[in-house]
């Protein structure tokens, strides 16, 4: 008798690249030595808005030792290839400057000292123009989204209670451990190989082709081991890579362009800040009558991925609830601040923050012993319910499962016994669409390939990247089980565009669910073919949208996402009334992930995401000055340390999705959604004050506490 096969899926097998990372063998971009490579550097604007009047290279300096690249040296289009054509690779002479830290000039030299010295001999003169910094005064609109369900206007009068609130969310830095960086190497036949820290090899590929006027074959993009991304390495690496390649082209030799932390913080994209207004109407018994929501996000100076971020924000804005009448009006505006871009959650954390706190406010104003948990139970989307876009939820709806599981897992609440510390608890319930929005996956048609090799091993070819979240490991697990072979027999090819097909970007909680499913299908097909054929064999698989998914881009009606993952989070906080400091002590989060392909990594994703959200909710603050970030160093941009991290307990709930690989849904971004509103609700529970705003810095908390105290004193 054969022993039962040991399956890989569902087991926390060792990470593919784990040993290399912990032993230091892993080569991140800056670890890669390239013979004869020069170092590059970016000269950036010091003003927020205006025009370049002149660029002068000080004749006192010996420029023969340095390569200088300006917009004039761009062989192709001076455009960062993305959604719009608005962002230049380098601001052209006489061209407009739209934000601080905008790239104007590139330098490369054989050593850093010469490079630094050269940088001090570049003089740029500007014609100043009036910058726009505030959302409220912005006039240029990048995009708008309108979602309508039922008819808010006609039912407004029938509500017994209407609650109105305004919420604010702040900028956030992704703070991947490894700053941005790329090395460009000129190769034969006018080709350029770019090795870098990046999430989306084919985004970079397209950007290189466009700016350097290269063919598909001439642009080669290779992902080096990457120290985190969180969305920050979705679009920005295109800029770094194109800059490095322009320098390499002019220098005729390899050029490394590696940002230090200061430049990375000062110049690269952040989470979109915004203002969200809610009007919610309910009956006396709490029945939801209407939700009227307005969202304004600040896109910064260039469009980047803002319309897609706005779209996700709008689609998630009504929260995990079923309401017959919904109106969501969202717009993204331009300001003269560095462009905002992709960041884990992609707009959903912003709008869900408001939606979740709205439940709290309605419960509070309804009174009569109705708790916000009661309201959530009453309102939440269940199987067969319809979302704001009119999507009927037909499977894998985990709302009630996660709510029950989180409540069960939470410990008994212990009030604080320190007189100056108040303790509170808050809860949130969220959902997050897995995969690209609407017809995104259909348009993208991500592709992978699988090879059965003559030596009996199998190789996965995909452009999906490992950025710490476990792609390499789970793809091999999925393939091994679908093939019915031991995990060791499956390998994964390097993320090199000259080898692997375009699987789409590694974003949008789509890699495990969408691309992973392709891996599973390709493996199953190979297994079948091997019954008749002999290796080597190759199967290519592209995503085909199931007929049952309908989406109308024009009306924003239909199936916004193939499926949703769900989470309920309970946060306990200690608020120090002496200092206004908020310490999140405990966090329980129950997550419906469909299937935990690798439980340890799933928990790792969730814990990391929760901590990132706790930072956003409490201390990660960016103050602006003249359109630039004041907190542009790690000494001033504070994120939680290990000592600040709450105890996080994760409950994984497996509520399978029929089209996910082995039932899995995407959970990369979901953990970013729930903690912030739970923390703010907990602060209210502890102190009685509402902040409606993140980050709830000690300064804001203390001011709110003092305000409440003064109001009390005035009343008595």
């Amino acid at each position, binding site marked *: 008798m054969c022993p039962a096969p040991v399956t890989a899926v569902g087991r926390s097998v060792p990470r593919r690249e784990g040993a290399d990372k912990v032993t230091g063998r892993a080569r991140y971009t800056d670890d890669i030595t390239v013979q004869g490579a020069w170092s590059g550097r970016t000269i950036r604007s010091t003003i927020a808005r205006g025009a370049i009047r002149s660029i002068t290279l000080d004749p006192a300096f010996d420029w023969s030792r340095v390569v200088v690249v300006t917009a004039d040296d761009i062989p192709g289009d001076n455009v960062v290839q993305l959604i719009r054509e608005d962002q230049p690779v380098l601001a052209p002479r006489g061209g407009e400057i739209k934000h601080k830290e905008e790239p104007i000039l590139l330098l490369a030299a054989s050593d850093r000292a010469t490079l630094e010295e050269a940088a001090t001999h570049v003089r740029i003169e500007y014609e100043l123009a009036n910058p726009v910094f505030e959302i409220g005064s912005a006039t240029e609109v990048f995009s708008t989204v309108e979602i309508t369900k039922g008819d808010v206007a006609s039912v407004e009068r029938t509500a017994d209670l209407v609650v109105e609130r305004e919420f604010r969310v702040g900028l956030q830095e992704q703070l991947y451990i490894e700053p941005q960086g790329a090395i460009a190497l000129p190769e034969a036949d006018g080709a350029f190989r770019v090795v870098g820290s990046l999430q989306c090899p084919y985004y970079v590929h397209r950007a290189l082709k466009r700016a350097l006027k290269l063919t598909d074959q001439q642009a080669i993009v290779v992902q080096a081991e990457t120290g985190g991304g969180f969305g920050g390495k979705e679009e920005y690496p295109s800029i770094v890579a194109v800059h490095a390649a322009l320098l390499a082209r002019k220098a005729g030799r390899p050029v490394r362009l590696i940002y230090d932390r200061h430049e990375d913080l000062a110049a690269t994209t952040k989470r979109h800040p915004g203002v969200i207004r809610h009007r919610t109407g309910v009956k006396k018994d709490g029945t939801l009558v209407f939700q009227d929501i307005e969202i304004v996000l600040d896109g910064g100076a260039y469009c980047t991925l803002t319309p897609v971020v706005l779209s996700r924000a709008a689609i998630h804005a009504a929260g995990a609830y079923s309401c017959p009448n919904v109106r969501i009006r969202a717009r993204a505006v331009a300001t003269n601040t560095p462009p905002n871009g992709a960041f884990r959650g992609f707009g959903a954390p912003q709008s869900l923050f408001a939606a979740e706190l709205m439940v709290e406010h309605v419960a509070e104003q309804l009174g009569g012993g109705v708790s916000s948990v009661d309201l959530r139970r009453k309102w939440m989307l269940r199987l067969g319910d319809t979302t704001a876009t009119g999507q009927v939820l037909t499977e894998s709806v985990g709302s009630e499962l996660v709510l029950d599981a989180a409540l069960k897992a939470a410990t008994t609440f212990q009030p604080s016994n320190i007189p*100056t510390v108040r303790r509170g608890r808050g809860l949130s319930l969220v959902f997050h669409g897995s995969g690209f929005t609407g017809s995104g996956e259909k348009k993208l048609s991500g592709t992978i390939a699988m090879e059965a090799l003559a030596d009996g091993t199998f190789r996965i070819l995909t452009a999906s990247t490992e950025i710490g979240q476990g792609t390499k490991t789970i793809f091999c697990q999925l393939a091994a089980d679908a093939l019915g072979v031991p995990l060791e027999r499956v390998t994964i090819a390097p993320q090199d565009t000259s080898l692997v097909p375009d699987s789409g970007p590694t974003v949008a909680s789509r890699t495990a669910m969408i691309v992973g499913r392709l891996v599973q299908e390709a493996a199953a097909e190979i297994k079948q073919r091997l019954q008749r054929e002999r290796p080597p064999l190759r199967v290519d698989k592209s995503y085909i949208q199931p007929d049952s998914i309908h989406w109308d881009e024009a009306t924003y009606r239909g199936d916004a996402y193939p499926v949703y993952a769900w989470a309920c989070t309970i946060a306990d906080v200690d608020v120090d*009334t*002496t*200092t*206004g*400091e908020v310490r999140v002590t405990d966090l329980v989060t129950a997550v419906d992930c469909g299937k935990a392909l690798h439980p340890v990594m799933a928990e790792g994703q969730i814990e990391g995401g929760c901590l990132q959200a706790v930072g956003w909710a409490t*201390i990660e603050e960016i*103050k602006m000055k003249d359109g630039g970030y*004041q*907190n542009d160093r790690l*000494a*001033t941009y*504070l994120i*939680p*340390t*290990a*000592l*600040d991290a709450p105890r996080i307990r994760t409950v994984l709930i497996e509520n399978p999705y029929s089209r996910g690989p082995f039932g899995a849904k995407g959970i990369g971004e979901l953990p970013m959604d729930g903690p912030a509103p739970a923390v703010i609700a907990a602060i209210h529970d502890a102190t009685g004050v509402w902040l409606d705003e993140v980050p709830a*810095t*000690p*300064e804001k908390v*203390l*001011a709110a506490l*003092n305000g409440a105290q003064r109001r009390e004193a005035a009343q008595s």
Partner: protein
Amino acid sequence: MHDVTYLRPTDLKDAVQLYRTTPGCRPLAGGTDLIVMLHARTLRPPPRAVLDVWSLLELKGVRRTQGMLEIGAAESYTGIIRSRDAQEHVPALVAAARTIGAAQIQNRGTLGGNLANASPAGDTLPVLLAYDAVVVTDRRSIPIDQFFTGYRKTALQADELIVAVRMPLGRRVVFRKVGTRAAQAISKVVTAVSRSPARVAIGSVAEVPLRARRAEAALERGDMEGAIAAVADDIRPIDDVRSTAAYRRTVTQNVLRELLSVKPAL
């Protein structure tokens, strides 16, 4: 990074001699401030040499002398935290040392560096003020309340080395740092208080770490509420990237109230 000559003296005498005779020379202890500044090229004028005092035996150790506790200028925070004598006689300094940076910085950072760097946010400085510490140099003793002369300025002469810091035994001092996160935080407000004699010393609320004289006077009279009210006039906080003047003012008062209500362990 500035290019500098690296000098390694054999003993204190050698160090004093080298410091006196080498132009543009800066002492280097743990380097946790100096290397950062060398790297960022913020030192004016740029130094031409560094004098490594880290290994000088005369600048190491925690010991009792002449009824005082003496800590070598180049003793690390970790050394202070681990010292029985420090734990017993200056627990507030040990508490402050534990809040500095994180483990790596505590292994390299020194009292001499914190003093000479004279940042208004230096976390040991209010504690040293509350203990009435004496800064012992290669040539004299400077009472701590005469040490800080302006924003990042000290009473040290151009070629004067800090050798040790002395503190009286048996004084009860309590300490609290407010820095928004639990480690790797630069203080928004840092306070050390002694009830008897009355000392209220605060950092990050003015251009220097200061003694709140009005608050101390009230405290000397046993007027706690008076001290809490008066301390607001003793400080000169500003808005900056880390916090606001309003926050610093409120927190200074709140922390003082809190520290006056705790019974110091000693």
